[in-house]
């Protein structure tokens, strides 16, 4: 009889956690691979407007221009007027030309002629600032632009 109820009253066996590190490592590698460490330190606010009729940006041939009001921690120093940022520093509208050609040289040579300018502009910016940027881009003959937007749409149909 005792053969059959030997284990009765015994404690629950512990869950085997030997494979836990493997699982965690798998997740770890996934995130390591997909992680892109932020290259540019944001000096301006970046709340992008929403749009849903969008196209994908080709990363390898793009340079970015950021624009918006200075972030809260730079407010005291730079005021609240909209500013342009390229790379990780503020750029004056007149220095745009230099900053952009510099950014362009970082792309691989074959694609430098097909450069697309990604405009990441905060939704509270005035269009006037954007207009100045576009005017400069026309001067530089970088006519392909893309307004980077956030997914979604505020407009109710």
């Amino acid at each position, binding site marked *: 009889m005792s053969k059959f109820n030997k284990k009765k009253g015994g404690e629950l066996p512990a869950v085997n956690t030997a494979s836990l590190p493997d699982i965690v490592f798998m997740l770890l590698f996934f*995130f390591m691979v*997909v992680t892109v460490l932020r290259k540019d330190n944001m000096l301006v606010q970046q709340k992008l407007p929403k749009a849903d009729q969008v*196209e994908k940006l080709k990363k390898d041939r793009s340079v970015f221009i950021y624009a918006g009001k200075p972030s809260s921690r730079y407010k005291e120093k730079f005021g609240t007027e909209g500013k342009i940022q390229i790379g990780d520093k503020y750029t004056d509208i007149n220095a745009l030309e230099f900053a952009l050609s510099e950014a362009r040289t970082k792309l691989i040579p074959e694609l430098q002629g097909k450069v697309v300018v990604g*405009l990441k502009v905060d939704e509270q910016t005035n269009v006037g600032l954007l207009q100045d940027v576009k005017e400069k881009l026309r001067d530089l003959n970088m006519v392909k632009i893309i307004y980077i937007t956030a997914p979604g749409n505020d407009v109710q149909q």
Partner: protein
Amino acid sequence: MGRRATPEVNAGSMADIAFLLLIFFLVTTTIEKDKGIARQLPPKQDEQPPVDIKEKNIFVVTVNKEDQILADNELMDIQDIRQAAISFLDNGGDGSCDYCKGEKDIASSDNPEKAIITVKSDRETSYKTYIQVQNELVAAYNFLRNRESERLFGFEFTKVKSAIATGDFKGNEERAQAKLQEIQALFPMKLSEAEAKKSQ
């Protein structure tokens, strides 16, 4: 002296270390998903060639500094822009466009080939409204292109286009590209961006 087995390394804390790293990467990850509305700026020209465009073929959308929208001389809500643009493009006033399903109003655009939409904005217009307007106008074109590609080829223009762009398209890509171009020619995107005015 019997050989002693080497003591096993305690791997119990391995999970902790891995978790720590995992959490670090979780926090720093920003899965990049840059998408947006693509545009081509007009090239710089010293002298503008005189262009003769009938007024009825231009659909003017003006956004003022209070973010109010005037489309075709009517004060309009952002929700109505898309429909207004669709009926303008799809009008086919001169009867040469046999695929148009519009009202064939003589006072509106002749055909999609000639129809031009232009967006005028004030320097103090907010970028948010500006993008919303642009988005609605692109949506109008996409709607018409989808309609035509459904009719002619039985697929949705925007779906096939994004599938090709992401490399997910199954089938003959070149043939699909040719079809897309055919559709694009039916409703060519003529969106001009006038320079922003200085506000008084």
